[in-house]
């Protein structure tokens, strides 16, 4: 089997998983089902990362997104009684307008991409390397982008404090 067909197959299967999961996520009545479909999408994205020479990022995606953020989501869904919400109307009143606007944006995206697709193909492949992935990632994070990294950690700290404060019963 030629390499390119395998590549194509990989991409299209993952694309279907990602988009299908995403559509299911936003259409499910039950929030837990939404969360499960979101997990499917995130898994698909992790698969794409693997395909794009970003093994470290794929592992981080699963560890942080699925093992962390999605568990947090499910936790909150369990804490908050959503049975009531599942019985009510699911979409708000301006849904048709929103849908039209988004579709227009999507068409615009598509148009620009069609026109500009050639430029991606001609853009020169970079000179750098992506392997060994973990080591290069370390260099990128801890040398090139040390300041953003520190700021990100600060952001996380603030977010933790904010979340604790927000979710506490009595302040």
């Amino acid at each position, binding site marked *: 089997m030629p390499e390119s067909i395998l590549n194509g197959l990989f991409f299209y299967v993952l694309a279907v998983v990602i988009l299908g999961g995403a559509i299911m996520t*936003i259409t499910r009545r039950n929030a837990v089902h939404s969360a499960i479909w979101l997990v499917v999408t995130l898994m698909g994205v992790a698969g794409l990362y693997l395909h794009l020479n970003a093994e470290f990022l794929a592992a981080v995606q699963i560890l942080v997104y699925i093992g962390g953020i999605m568990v947090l989501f499910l936790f909150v869904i369990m804490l908050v009684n959503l049975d009531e919400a599942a019985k009510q109307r699911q979409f708000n009143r301006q849904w048709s307008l929103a849908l039209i606007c988004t579709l227009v944006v999507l068409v615009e995206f598509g148009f620009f991409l069609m026109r500009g697709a050639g430029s991606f193909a001609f853009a020169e492949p*970079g000179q750098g390397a992506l392997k060994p992935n973990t080591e290069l990632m370390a*260099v990128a994070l801890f040398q090139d982008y040390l300041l953003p990294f520190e700021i990100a950690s600060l952001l996380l700290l603030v977010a933790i404090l904010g979340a604790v404060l927000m979710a506490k019963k009595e302040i």
Partner: protein
Amino acid sequence: MPEITTAHYVMLSAALFSIGTIGVLTRRNVVIILMSIELILNAVNINLVAFSNQLMNMSGQAFAVFVIVDAAAEAAVGLGIIIALFRNKETVNADEIDLMKW
């Protein structure tokens, strides 16, 4: 089957982004709106990583890590807000939360 280029990835990312936007704009349930935001962030990440792969440059992946950090922070704070909201208003519907105070 044509070669899979970066354009394909960008197209996929655009589609995912649009789905996320639709979710944010149309759903009433705040929890699902938050999930839609995660979809949008993932769309961005796909772009970053795809270009990183084309340009053979680590910066894209590094930024994807930062986006994931952002997503984690956003989810934590967002869910904290949802819990506080539910405790005070007994609802998770976005269009019922229309007072500036409680």
